């Protein structure tokens, strides 16, 4: 084992120890395990929601996208800010309702708001479908880190298995408390490393940012701006809109909200979190610096760019430190996602379908689903083929379909009926699934649109279909008495 791998392994062990330590002295009820007894103050809620963003998605995916695609990566910097601004008004009412009804999941939220267990089940299914690519990308990131940092000694396949086992053990021993404490360690480490790399690499290889961007612009004209078609401005706009709206619709992000002790945490965080986003800039700099230094990575391999450049630049021990930070960026969010998916299935699919199960039985099912789900994700990870960013966008395309129904349910008089909500979610998700599975484009479905419409992010196009379907069905199924005040 080389020094880089030894440091990475040590960091994983410390993370496990922190997780086990956090568990001591608490009785692990389902509520404790998943929402940590709703007892986190502003700083921890801040780190959990921020920790949700600084995942392997940004660390490897963000730098890889800057390396491989150029300007389209800018979207990653833009959407969080808009999501945080929305969160100022969106999250407090969700949190209040969740506390009042003692909800532990997003699916519960729909069940209660729309008074429909079936809608809750539908939402749980969409949530699990969206979480799988998100989990896959964390495993993929872990695999890349371990494989590259081993300098080829460990194959990517074995590396993915090692990562999956670590995440699984971690979740099974600690639940949310573990995630929270590792989020603290992880964020400090990743912040320091990304800022260092984002300053050091451009200066070391090019002499400065201006020089670096001039060199890239000269070597690849048009790379640093949006293209006239394909990933055009229209793609940027629709992708930012989709991801900003979907940001808090992830089942794990939604459930993480419930960990707050007070709603003012969200409003305060809405000020600080946009600034925290700026760390992404340094991630981009790493990817841009790699363009002319480690050229030739293509397809899903663009995600390797940061590590390839690190290996070219630094001694193995420092590659190990970068790898350790990278492992935590996959471990913490990976565990949150795995935990959410398991809870989702146990609590929101199994429980409503087989009433009479005890609290302990549901908690046991949730815990035993963790390794099963990890196996499913490993299976998809080994199939390969997609970049990290493409995987996340696929998840977003599904999960954002929940947004219209959430927003309508927060209105004083909900214009959407449960049938309307279900129709919208099903229609939107069906469009995404069709286009994703068939590999076709939106204009195949709606042939009268101009070709430029293909630049629109498919998730956003599906969202429009979703809203139209929800509005139409809500109008038809609305109780007669409510028709008078038509304000949808």
């Amino acid at each position, binding site marked *: 084992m080389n020094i880089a791998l030894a440091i990475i392994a040590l960091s994983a062990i410390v993370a496990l120890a922190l997780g086990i330590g956090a568990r001591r002295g608490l009785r692990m009820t389902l509520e404790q395990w998943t929402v940590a007894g709703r007892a986190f103050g502003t700083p921890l809620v801040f780190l959990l929601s921020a920790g949700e963003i600084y995942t392997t998605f940004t660390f490897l995916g963000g730098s890889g996208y800057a390396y491989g695609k150029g300007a389209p990566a800018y979207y990653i910097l833009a959407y969080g800010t*808009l999501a945080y601004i929305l969160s100022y008004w969106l999250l407090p009412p969700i949190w209040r309702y969740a506390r009042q009804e003692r909800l532990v999941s997003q699916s519960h939220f729909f069940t209660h708001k729309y008074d429909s267990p079936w809608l809750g089940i539908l939402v749980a299914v969409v949530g699990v479908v969206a979480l799988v690519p998100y989990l896959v990308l964390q495993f993929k990131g872990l695999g890349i880190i371990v494989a590259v940092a081993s300098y080829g000694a460990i194959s990517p396949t074995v590396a993915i298995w090692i990562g999956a086992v670590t995440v699984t053990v971690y979740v099974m021993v600690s639940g949310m408390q573990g995630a929270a404490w590792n989020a603290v360690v992880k964020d400090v480490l990743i912040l320091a490393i990304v800022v260092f790399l984002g300053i050091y690499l451009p200066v070391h290889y090019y002499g400065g940012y201006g020089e670096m961007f001039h060199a890239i612009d000269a070597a690849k004209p048009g790379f640093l701006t949006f293209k006239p078609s394909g990933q055009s401005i229209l793609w940027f*706009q629709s992708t930012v809109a989709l991801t900003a709206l979907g940001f808090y619709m992830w089942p794990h992000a939604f459930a993480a909200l419930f960990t707050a002790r007070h709603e*003012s945490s969200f409003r305060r965080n809405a000020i600080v979190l*946009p600034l925290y986003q700026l760390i992404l800039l340094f991630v981009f700099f790493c990817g841009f610096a790699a363009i002319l230094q480690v050229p030739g990575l293509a397809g899903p391999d663009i995600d390797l760019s940061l590590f390839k450049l690190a290996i070219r630049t630094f001694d193995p021990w420092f590659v190990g430190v970068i790898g350790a930070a990278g492992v935590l960026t996959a471990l913490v969010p990976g565990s949150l996602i795995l935990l959410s998916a398991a809870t989702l299935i146990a609590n929101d699919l199994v429980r409503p379908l087989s009433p009479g199960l005890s609290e302990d039985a549901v908690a046991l099912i949730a815990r035993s689903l963790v390794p099963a789900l990890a196996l499913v994700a490993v299976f998809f990870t080994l199939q390969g083929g997609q970049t990290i960013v493409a995987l996340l966008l696929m998840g977003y395309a599904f999960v954002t379909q929940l947004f219209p129904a959430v927003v309508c349910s927060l209105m004083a008089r909900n214009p959407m009926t449960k049938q309307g909500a279900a129709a919208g979610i099903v229609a939107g998700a069906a469009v995404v699934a069709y286009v994703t599975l068939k590999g076709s484009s939106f204009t195949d479905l709606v042939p009268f649109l101009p070709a430029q419409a293909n630049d629109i992010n498919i998730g956003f196009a599906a969202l429009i279909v979703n809203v139209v379907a929800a509005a139409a069905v809500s109008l038809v199924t609305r109780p007669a008495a409510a028709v008078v005040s038509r304000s949808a």
Partner: protein
Amino acid sequence: MTPARWLALLPFLGILVGTAFVNQVEPLVFGLPFVLAWIVGWVIAGAAIMAIVYALDPANAGREDSAR
């Protein structure tokens, strides 16, 4: 609910609409391509705007529930 909350629309306009008009590399701003610098500017402005909204929002008056 104060009129200040309408300020929160500005980052949406700046990022979702404005970016279409600044899709260019030159001039570099602090070494960044112009379109990237434009987005960065709106991220910072977004935080500033939310600080103003927070300060003027009566919902936050006299609420210091946790150490911060």
